[in-house]
């Protein structure tokens, strides 16, 4: 339940107007009795809430056992309802998620813009400098200053001109822009578990085998 609850939290945040990353199917959301425009992510909210309920069941059982001498004590009769409730709640929550996930619609542009906006390729720039011969700590410092410059001039890293970049390190050449682009950054992490699309594809294949 803890994992479903954390997943729920992300879905709720992603569906908020402030984030706007995803939308959930109409059939899996509910409206407001007063605000006509509302479409609320009640399913993940409820799963997040029901996690508290299952934790409560667990606490009830642990507390029930904590002072019992061996062997049977009538206290144990009190375990049934917590156990049944926890199992029922877990099952309902899993049914909810199996139904909800296929209705997730992704807003590609919003996600992409958000990824482009937060200097997310700064680490890639530091790694680029390391490949060019700088020690990582120095590269970290260079990129920190570059980010500060970009913030002051209201630009993204990929929006800086080559001379602007070169004032922080002479080793930067025009091949830097592939590194600063999001696609390049994602594809560069090309190892088992990395973000490169072919690695994700392979991971999906591996996980599918575990379904049986």
């Amino acid at each position: 339940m803890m994992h479903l609850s954390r997943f729920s939290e992300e879905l709720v945040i992603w569906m908020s107007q402030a984030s706007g990353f995803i939308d959930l199917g109409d059939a899996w959301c509910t409206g407001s009795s007063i605000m006509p425009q509302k479409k609320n992510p009640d399913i993940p909210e409820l799963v997040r809430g029901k996690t508290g309920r299952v934790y409560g069941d667990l606490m009830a059982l642990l507390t029930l056992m904590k002072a019992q001498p061996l062997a049977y004590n009538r206290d144990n009769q009190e375990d049934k309802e917590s156990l049944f409730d926890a199992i029922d709640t877990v099952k309902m929550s899993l049914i909810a998620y199996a139904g909800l996930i296929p209705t997730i619609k992704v807003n590609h542009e919003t996600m992409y813009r958000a990824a482009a906006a937060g200097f997310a390729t700064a680490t890639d720039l530091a790694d680029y400098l390391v490949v060019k011969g700088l020690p990582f700590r120095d590269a970290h410092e260079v990129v920190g200053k570059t980010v500060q410059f970009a913030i002051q001039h209201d630009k993204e890293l990929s929006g800086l001109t080559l001379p602007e970049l070169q004032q922080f390190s002479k080793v930067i050449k025009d091949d830097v822009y592939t590194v600063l682009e999001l696609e390049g950054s994602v594809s560069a992490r090309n190892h088992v578990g990395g973000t490169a699309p072919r690695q994700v594809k392979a991971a999906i294949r591996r996980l599918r085998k575990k379904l049986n």
Partner: protein
Amino acid sequence: MSSKNTEKPWGGRFTAPTDKFVEQFTESVSYDQRLAHYDIMGSIAHVRMLGMVGVISGKESAQIIRGLKKIEKDIKGGAFQWLTTLEDVHMNIETALVANIGDVGKKLHTGRSRNDQVATDIRLYCRDEIDLICDQINAVLNALLTLADDHIDTIMPGFTHLQSAQPVTFGHHLLAWAEMLLRDRSRLHDCRKRLNLLPLGSAALAGTSYPIDRNMVAKELALMASHKTHWTQSVTVILQ
């Protein structure tokens, strides 16, 4: 029927009938009737073994098994009447058995206690529920992997401290959730191994002087034979 002062199956040493409030306060049949199927399954395995080892006759064993199967049918069909005055699922079934097949039904409870009986019921119940939950986890995993496959190129920000950290893809992110659920499924599998043990035969706590064959009962229930252990520990494992 007997000279005892109450109609309870354990009423022999009592001189007064149970107070009505105490009956209400102590009953569990209103919720533990959910275990009926497993209670009967355990009883059938137990009584078959009693017949095989000669504690009761083969004929008596067969009669009781027939009676138990009939009760299971009644319960499934909704014809069974649950009585809170009979406390719990065990006494309800046993009392109905005696009412249906007569005094031979009283031999069902030979060499066991409700203590090992309920522990067996719960293990059988949890085993089935774990299997169901694992199937449901697989359904969620399947949905996650299908969605991830559609989004291996969909770029999104990855976060730490909920601050933009490094670019990832939505597909990559979803796989983290899939792996978490796989770990949960693996925990349930471990839990299943630990709970797949047979408490029946330990009776109230110390075992029984009848020449019972626990392995035979375990085999019928597809459980590993064991000494009595505290099953509530496995309950806490499930809740992880």
